[in-house]
Every structure is written in structure tokens, then in C-alpha cells.
């Protein structure tokens, strides 16, 4: 099925048999899809009991936006694991060799185009403000850590793209940024145990504050990880990869 992974664009060698297989598969998948639709039609949607329970418990959750309440209180464990997923990808994509600079370094190739500089000067502060707004408003209205993190990452990526900035992802501070969200989440989850007897069970009075702490940490981590992802994809230089190519094929000697 995935035995041939294609990287070149015009590798189209359609023989008659493969066309036949494709056609048959298309028909099969179409049939299966229609059966799926039929099965969905045949069943009634369940009554929204869980929705009602969730909406009734909002007052205990410390936030007013129901989605934020579900994400960071009722089902906060899912969100905890989800931040771990982001951390996995960040660790996997960390660069191999250190550039041996500080966390941020101004690039020597500063853009000279006036429009670009003007744009950056407007866009960056705006998106930082928007991100903070999204984070804050997440408690009451649509918004929250993931959206805020994404917007913040947008600002960071813009700075990277115009080559104003370089980030050294192997510094301790960089790794601390990556791990911040997960670490704060786990620590908060553990520290509430003496108060309420259950992990992740926030005391009602402090729920709002604790959720805000988690969200701020998560936003910073998410933004940093997303910047790392884009930056690594853009800047993966050939020279980074070369030394390992001399390794014998098929051997994994460390």
C-alpha cells in the first residue's frame, strides 16, 4: 500500500491493471461510504444529556466558556496528553547540532525592504496583543491556549521568515520553553491532590486561576513548538544531514 513512497511529481505510470484496481477501489470505498451514511441515517442522535450535564457544571469549573471548561477542567487529562503529543514532535524535530549561540540572536542579514519592515512593525505587536486577548477571552468566549499559541507562533514565524531572528533550540532555555506547558500541567495536576484528593481536581475557588496558569504556560510552549516546527522544515540545511550519510546502510551502530 505504502510500499512506494513517491517524492517526484510527475511519476505517473498508469498501466491498465493499476487503473482497474484504482477504479474498483474507488467503487468499493464509495459503496462503503454510502453504507456508512445509511448507518448514520438509521440511528437517532443520542439525547444531549452529557451536554446538559456539562452546561450545568459550568459554574463549578472556574471558566464560563463551555469548550474551555471541557478542555481544561472536565476532560483536562486529554489536553495534558495532547500537549505531550506536541512535545514528542518538538523533540523529534530538534536540530542535531548546536549553533552555539544564545537563545535568540539577531541575524546579520537584516531585511532592507521598507515595506517589509513596516509590515513587521505593525504585525508583530498586533499579533502578540491578539494572542493575549484570545488567551484571556478564552475563559468567557471562543478562544484559548491553542488559538493564542498559534497566533503567537505566527508572529514568531514572521520574524524568522524575514530573517530578523535566529533561535537556538538546543539551549536550556529553549528546551525549558518546550517543556513548560507539560511540566506546569503535571505539577498543577499533582499539587491539587492534597487539597481535593484527586489529581487534576482543582479546588472550586482557585479553579479559574489554576486554569489561567496552565493556559499561559501552554500558550508559550505551543507557540514555541510551532515556531520550531516551521523553522526546522524551512532551515533543514543539507549540511546538517551529510555526516550521517557515510554510515553503513542498514546498520544502527550508535
Amino acid at each position, binding site marked *: 500500500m*505504502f*510500499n512506494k*513512497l513517491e517524492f517526484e511529481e510527475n511519476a505517473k505510470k498508469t498501466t491498465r491493471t493499476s487503473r482497474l484496481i484504482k477504479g474498483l477501489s474507488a467503487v468499493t470505498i464509495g459503496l462503503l461510504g454510502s453504507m456508512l451514511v*445509511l*448507518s*448514520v441515517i*438509521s*440511528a*437517532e*442522535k*443520542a*439525547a444531549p444529556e*452529557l451536554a446538559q*450535564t*456539562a452546561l450545568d457544571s459550568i459554574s463549578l469549573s472556574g471558566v464560563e466558556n463551555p469548550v474551555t471548561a471541557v478542555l481544561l*477542567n*472536565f*476532560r*483536562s*487529562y*486529554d489536553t*495534558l*496528553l495532547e500537549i*505531550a*503529543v506536541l*512535545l*514528542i*514532535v518538538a*523533540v*523529534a524535530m*530538534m536540530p*542535531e*547540532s548546536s549553533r552555539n549561540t544564545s537563545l535568540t540572536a539577531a541575524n546579520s542579514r537584516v531585511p532592507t525592504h521598507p515595506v517589509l519592515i513596516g509590515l513587521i512593525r505593525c504585525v508583530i505587536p498586533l499579533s502578540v496583543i491578539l494572542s493575549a486577548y484570545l488567551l484571556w477571552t478564552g475563559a468567557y468566549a471562543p478562544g484559548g491556549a491553542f488559538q493564542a499559541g498559534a497566533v503567537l507562533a505566527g508572529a514568531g514565524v514572521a520574524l524568522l521568515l524575514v530573517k530578523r531572528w535566529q533561535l537556538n533550540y*538546543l539551549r*536550556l532555555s529553549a*528546551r*525549558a520553553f*518546550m*517543556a513548560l506547558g*507539560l*511540566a506546569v500541567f*503535571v505539577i498543577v*495536576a499533582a499539587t491539587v*491532590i492534597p487539597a*481535593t*484528593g*484527586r*489529581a*487534576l*481536581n*482543582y479546588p472550586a475557588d482557585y479553579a479559574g486561576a489554576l486554569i489561567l496558569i496552565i493556559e499561559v504556560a501552554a500558550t508559550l510552549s505551543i507557540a514555541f513548538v510551532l515556531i520550531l516546527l516551521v523553522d526546522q522544515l524551512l532551515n533543514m540545511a543539507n549540511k546538517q544531514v551529510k555526516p*550521517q550519510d557515510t*554510515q*553503513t*546502510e*542498514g*546498520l*544502527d*551502530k*550508535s
Partner: protein
Amino acid sequence: MGAPGIVMTSAQHFLPLVIGLPLLAAVFCLLVSNSRWSARFSILFASIHTLVVMQVLSSLRDSGSVWRYELGGWGAPLGIDLVLDGFSVILLFATTIVVLCVTTYSAAYFKTPQQTSRFWPLWWLLVAGLNAAFLSGDAFNLYVALEIIGLSSVALVALAGNVSAITAALRYALVGLLGSLCYLMGVALLYRAYGTLDLALLSQTVQGTPITWAALALISVGLLLKTALLPLHFWLPPAHAGAPAPVSAALSALVVKASFYVLARFWLDVCSPAASADALNLLGFFGACAIFWGCFAACRAKRLKLLVAYSTVAQLGYLFLLFPLTAAYGPSAGSAALAAVAYLIVAHAFAKAAMFMAAGSIQLACGYDDIDRLRGVVSHQPISVFTFAIAGASLIGLPPTGGFIAKWLLLNSAIDSGQWWWIAVILCGGLFSAIYIFRVLILAFTARQGEQSSSGGPTHPIPQTMMACGFMLAIATVALGFNAEWLLSYMDINLIGFLAGTEPLP
């Protein structure tokens, strides 16, 4: 909101710790990033982890009932519960022992800072994902846990750093993402029809309607992709053979079992009203095909690690015999089959991890793992070959090992349910396993013939700890054979439908 009347023993607080500890270890190793200290801390963390799980095991036996831990204090429909029963505790036990050995092995295996700085955080995240999957009582939470397992496994396979391994990792990643999406679609349909994500509540309300069939089919396809049952196994051999040896050990021993565990949960418990006998027999049929094909491919494999990877495909086939053996043959045959398969999972996990570790040691020492060049390898790698032999005996199902007890239990439940054809499959499978195991062993024990060996070149000294870890696991396989009663008694504490009724326990 929490259901009243649930008695919490203090030991139940270990349940979130089992997940939190690996997560903290991951953060810790990421921040330390010094290969020597990461390794030391990891061994320390693995030991604490083992102690915690052992404590959980003994407390669970004392309490004698299924544990539920309400994260966030909200309780089942609104919040997420951690659930621990006999099946999951057995898998947790297998995980913790393998993790302890693999951690110690890896501390000696990985040397370069480029590899260690990534390996340790990823490894602990993988462990956290495995524990989360085995403890989860919530369908969507299982999705996230499976994603953690899948993505961290992919990243770990890619650590090997050569083109073939990274290509295998990419294929694995595509399969994993596709499988997760199918699973998520199934969960979405279940949520649509029954309005809850909690597995225990679902198993009470699910009916055998078309939407449940559709959901179960989607969930099964997704999980079969991840478990690599025969027609969908194509991604497994290159990924498991190409990964660094400790990673291969964990992948074959634990990662594929996690998705099998979820699959068993859905077929036997959550969606059991929708599981027809035909479908169960079909799963068993594919399992039987996997046994034969896996053995055949292992016999033809050119490289040692590839041979071990194909043997995983074959051994996974045995697990799927669970489904036909439980199909409509009454509670006694069903529970016996589940106990046999749970035991087989542990036995296979130990044996396969030991085997990959031995193969990794041999590969590291010789610089190659082509089977044809392994002639006489026993003279300078006696411990590794011995480890391989014991683990192989367990895979074949020879007497003093855990594998023998597992096969024997499987045979028993096949006889009890009167399905003689599965008896034939189990026996033939053992015979074919013997062929590929002895193919390696005979070569390894044959004396070198003059100049032929000179092509092998000099061997490199490898750390004693690596050989010791593999050997310990091989010993554990034998020890398991002598302690079958102890492990099997946990199957009495079971949530799965036909064993303990479907009501959540007090």
C-alpha cells in the same frame, strides 16, 4: 458529580502516578540533556516506576475488585476515569518489566549526544503513552494515548538515522495516522449514537444496530492497521528491523500490544452486542494466516533483526485466536481464552524483547547481522546466543518457559470450545517457529570453517550491561513459566463483559 459509594483505597492514588511519573521523567531528561545523567536518572525513574507498579499489583490483589480513579473528580460521563482491571494490570506488569530492562540496555546502547538527547525524552513519553492506554477508561482518551504511542514510536524508529530506517518510520507514521483517524471516526459514530465516551457506560448501552457495526468496523480497521494483522502488516518488518535495537524491543514487545489491547476491549466488552461469531472467526482466520505467513517469511529472512520482526508478525497471529475461541462458546471457554492470551502477551513481550536485545548485541559486536555470516558466533557471543535460544524456546513453546504455558492454555481453551482446527494451527505454528529459530541457532553453534569467517572481521567489545539485560529478560521468561498461577489469578478481577457482568464495580 462523582458516583457515590466508590471506596478509594490509598493505593489507588498510584494510578495517576503511573502516568505522571514517565511524563515528569520525559521533562527531566529533556532539560538535563546530558547523556550520562539522563541515563542514570532514567534507570532511577524506571526503578521507581517498577516499585510503583508492583505496589499497584499487590494492592489490587488485596482489594480484589476493579479500580476506578476519577481524574478531576467529575466522574464517568463528564470526566475521564482511569480503570484498572485484571487484563490491564497484566499488561501494565509486562510494560514495567520490559521498560526497566530496555532502559538499562539503552543506557549502554546509545552513546552519541545527538541520539541520547532525543531518545530519553521520547522514550519516557512512549512509556507514558503505553501506561495511559492500558489505564484509560474513555474512548477518546484512548485515541490520544494511541497517538502518543504512535508518534513517539515513529520518532524513535527515525533515530536510527539511515535512509531505510527513516523511510520505514515515514511509512509507519502514515499507517499510524490513518489508523487513528479510522478509530476516531468509529468513536465519533459511537458518541453520536450513545452520547457517551466512557467505555463502561458504552458497554451498558450499546446495541447491535447498524451504526454500532459501522463504528466497530472502523475501530477494528484502525486498530488492525496499528496492530499489523496479516494483510495490514506490511509496515511492521522494516520499521521493527530498522529501528535501534532497544527501540525494536519495545516496539515488538509493547507497542503493538497496546492497540491489540484496545481492540480486545472493544470486541469483547464495549461493542460485544455487535460482534457476530462470523466476524470473530474471520479475525481468527487472519490470525492463523499471519502465523503461517510470518513463520514462512522469517525462515526466508536474510538479516537477524528482520527475522525477529517477522516472527513478531507470526506471534501477533496467536493473539487473534482469542476472538474465535471466545466466540459464542460460553463464559468458561471465553475467560480461559482471555487468560491464555493475556498470559501469551506477557510471555511474548519478555521473549521478544530479550530476542531483539540479543540480536542488537550481536549486531553491535559483529558490525552486521546477516544470518549467513553468523556462523560460529557463539564462540565470542555466548551470552547473547544463549539469550536468543531461551527466548526462542519460549516463542516455540518449549516446556520450562512462559511460552509453553501460554500455548498450553490456548490449546486447552480450543479443546474446551471444541474447535479442533485451531489446535492444528497452534501446533503447526510452534513447529514452524522451531524451524526459523533453529536455523539461526544451528548456524550460531556450527564451528567456523577456516577462511570463511575472515570476512566477518574483528568483533567489538560491547558493554556487559547490555548482555545482562537481555539475559535477565530471558530468565524472566522462564520464571514466568513457573509463576503462571500468580499472574493468571489477576484475571479473576475482570471488567470484560462475560467475566464480571457489565456493571461498574463499587
